[in-house]
């Protein structure tokens, strides 16, 4: 039987994926395909979204009440499960974004002198 990696290992990456998902929903509800597309295009294909992680992550975010889901019709007339940000999700996104900026700032400051 497959064993999922336990929470704790790879927290940072998982946290990053969650944040990116939430960010992609700011502009409006979207289904899984769009979310993956948005992240990949928005990062100029630097970030590749693994579907094996995306869907469980969406499920988890929904469990925690950060996103809500509904079934709708896609641009090309396909049934699709849409996700939208909840108020809690918005708050979390704001908190995560500032935390990420602090972290990224700190890391880049540390890296700068070496490149000088």
């Amino acid at each position, binding site marked *: 039987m497959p064993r999922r990696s336990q929470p704790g290992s790879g927290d940072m990456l998982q946290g990053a994926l969650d944040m990116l998902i939430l960010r992609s929903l700011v502009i409006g509800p979207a289904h899984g395909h769009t979310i993956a597309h948005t992240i990949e295009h928005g990062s100029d294909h630097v970030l590749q979204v693994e579907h094996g992680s995306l*869907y469980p992550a969406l499920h988890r975010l929904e469990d925690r009440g950060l996103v809500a889901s509904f079934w709708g019709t*896609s641009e090309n007339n396909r049934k699709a499960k849409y996700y939208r940000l909840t108020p809690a999700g918005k708050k979390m996104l704001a908190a995560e974004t500032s935390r990420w900026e602090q972290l990224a700032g700190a890391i880049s400051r540390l890296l700068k002198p070496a490149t000088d």
Partner: protein
Amino acid sequence: MTPMGWSKYFRRRKKDEEAAREIASYIAIETDENIARGMTPQAAHDAAVRKFGNAMRVREEIYWMNTVRPIDNLWQDLRYAARLLLRDKGFALAAIVSLGLGIGANTAIFQLLDAVRLRSLPVAQPERLVEVRFKPGTSRSGSFTGRRPMLTYTLFDEVRRRQQVFSGIFAWNSSPLNTADGGEVRRIEGLWASGEMWSVLGLQPAVGRFYTPDDDRPGCGSPGAVLSYAYWQREFGGAPSVLQQTVRLEGVKFDIIGVAPPDFFGLDVGRRFDVALPLCGERLTSADGTGRAPGRSNWWLAAIGRLAPGRTEEQAADHVAAISPDIMAATLPSGYTAESEKQYRETNLTAMTASSGVSSIRAQFGEPLTVLLGATGLVLLIACANLANLLLARASAREREMAVRLAIGAPRRRLVLQLLVESVLLAVIGTVLGVLIARGLTTILLAQIAAGFGNVFIDLAWNTKMFLFTTAVSALACLLFGLVPALKATALSPASTLRAGGRGLTMSRERFGLRRLLVVTQVALSLVLLLGALLFSRTLYNLLSIDTGFDQQVLVVLLNHESLSGDVDRGRVVRDDIRERLASIPGVENVAQADYVPLEGSIWNEMAMVDTPAGPGEKVLSNLTRVGKGYFETMQVPILRGRDFDTRDSRQAPPVAIVNETFVKKTLGNDDPIGRTIRLEERQGQPAQSWQIVGVSRDAKHTDLREDFEPLIILPVTQNAEAQNWARFVIKPRGDLKSVTPAVVQKVAEVNPSIDIDFDVLSETIASGLVRERLMAALSGAFGVLAGLLAAVGLYGVMSYTVARRSNEIGIRLAMGARSVDVLKMVITEAGWMVGLGVVIGVALGLGAASAARTLLFGLQPTDPATLFSASALLATIGFIASYLPARRASKLDPMKTLRQE
């Protein structure tokens, strides 16, 4: 898990479906885009699927997020176990039935034991109740009546007035009361209880009111009766109008003033009262109109007090002991000899816990039930050993399956759990069956006990304790039979097991040793049970084959009415009249008057001595009775020397007596008793009594079947100077004993229709005294048979397995020229070792167990060699038969076939 989590758990299937749909939707959208990029539909779909990756993994990951993993596993295991059991129906049936019998027997016995021994009275704070009584082991003389004759009324009254440790104390007496109005007696259970009882026990009436201490004063008029809830339902259909009605007891009408709460059955566990009355009313139902209360040597009451707040049982015991001397001085019975008086003054009262009430059934059956619970425990152990054996056999059949599963990465813990789930499933089904068996068994047991006690009431409602006990027993059983096989089955080295071509050779030696050990255990425990069965059966046989010395096939008729008392001579005439009428009934062979009938329950005894030429002889405690014309013929007791009573022995003639052989032996030894004078120990306020011995009768049992012959003095009724309101007759009919009862009722009614008539078949009364032994013999016999069968099955299983396993070797032996009798001998010898070892261990265990049950045996020692030998021989025979069949199969093996199979 949070409530939110549980709702998730129950929606996990829907969520999974949704995930599947979501993935399908992704594939569809991606396919559309791929087509738009110019791919063929097939290529577009394949590319989309590739891009998504392992869809099943994603679904599984989401599924695991929603489920509770252990529960999911358990459910899987349960379904798997159920399928396996259904496939192997023979095994499942054997396992469930043997477990059901084991658990059922345990539950039934525990339920009875709980009901009579462990349960508290259904009243407020029963643990604060203590009984005030004499220290156990002390004795007093006087008249003892009722089921718990501990105190006299005067004594209770003194305790009630002087005590300072109880918030309240009450006295009670339970005895049957006649509700019929003349004719054949109809008895209900009466409870005479002082007015404090209801408040001390903290009870509230279901209907009406209770009587109070103010209602219960000596000399009260017509006091009110309180019905038990059950009696109210039974006799009055639960109608509230009962308060306007009366109840007739011993010919007296009592107003009904209330009904007790439903769960209050009285204070005597094993019985249920029907009507409760204040003590002051007792005199109204007595023959002389004064009752038992005034007499200072009438022992008929028991007292229960509730400890005052802050007081302990020890303090109460000390306190009543401290006030005892004053109480004794104030309550000294009249008519005691100087010696008895001194003894009485020195006796102390004490207080003992009464939280679970008192019980004559408990005294009789408490110990046997404990012994039986031990026996049922052994039965269950044997059943478990048997089951463990069967499971081990299955385990070796499943070695390959386990090895494969271990090899492809199943954690061992998971496999052990799965095997345990199988055992749990068996245990649960076995327990359900066991509970059903227990229900039937307790009903049968109660009927048995009731045969000896009359109206037995034991509350068999299931309670938490019962539930916990049964659950604990089956859980323990399940662990016992399931855990070791599960651990053994999975302790494999997959590589070597698989290499061994499916016939696990490497690990099996050790496991097989375990199976032998289990068989030895089974044999040993079975021997203990068989030994018990034989000891108890022989005890019953010994008791049944005792020669009582008289004809037990007689009908005893007790008549009760004031017309029998009054003037002594007139009472004599009435009795003679009744005797003549009874004798005239066709089918009556003999009839005689007898005031006290042997082994029938009522006793009259005195200290008697015989005059010798050297002066009065030694005092001997002797039983007395008065008999009328034809007694010795009716009871078939021969007179060995001297003469029977006859018309010479009138009230005016010198008093005479017939004594039995034991009386002569104890008082005179070898001297000739005829013509000697018997005297009773003199008492204050009583005329000296003496009789001249005119005859010697053959010895017969009198008070207790189990005792040796006791001294007996038989007096003629014709010389009785005391008025009695009762008379007893023994009737020897030609045919069936009960067939003459209607005629007896009719004949007595001709004399006076208001005479109360009570029938007893003497042989039945005597047999009912053996209920305990009958119960022990029947149950231990059943358990012994069951144990023997289980042991046989166990041995048979192991031997069959050995033979199957060694078929190669046996085939080679036969091919090399061994005769089949050699093979037979070889296999049986192997079984013989196991049985022999089991028997040796069993004898050691059995001797210990039997000596613990020593007091329940009669006429043999727990170490009785014949019984020990029979039990061992019986088990050896069972063992021989169980191993003979596999041995024969082995000896008939065809070497060619066996070896070719290899």
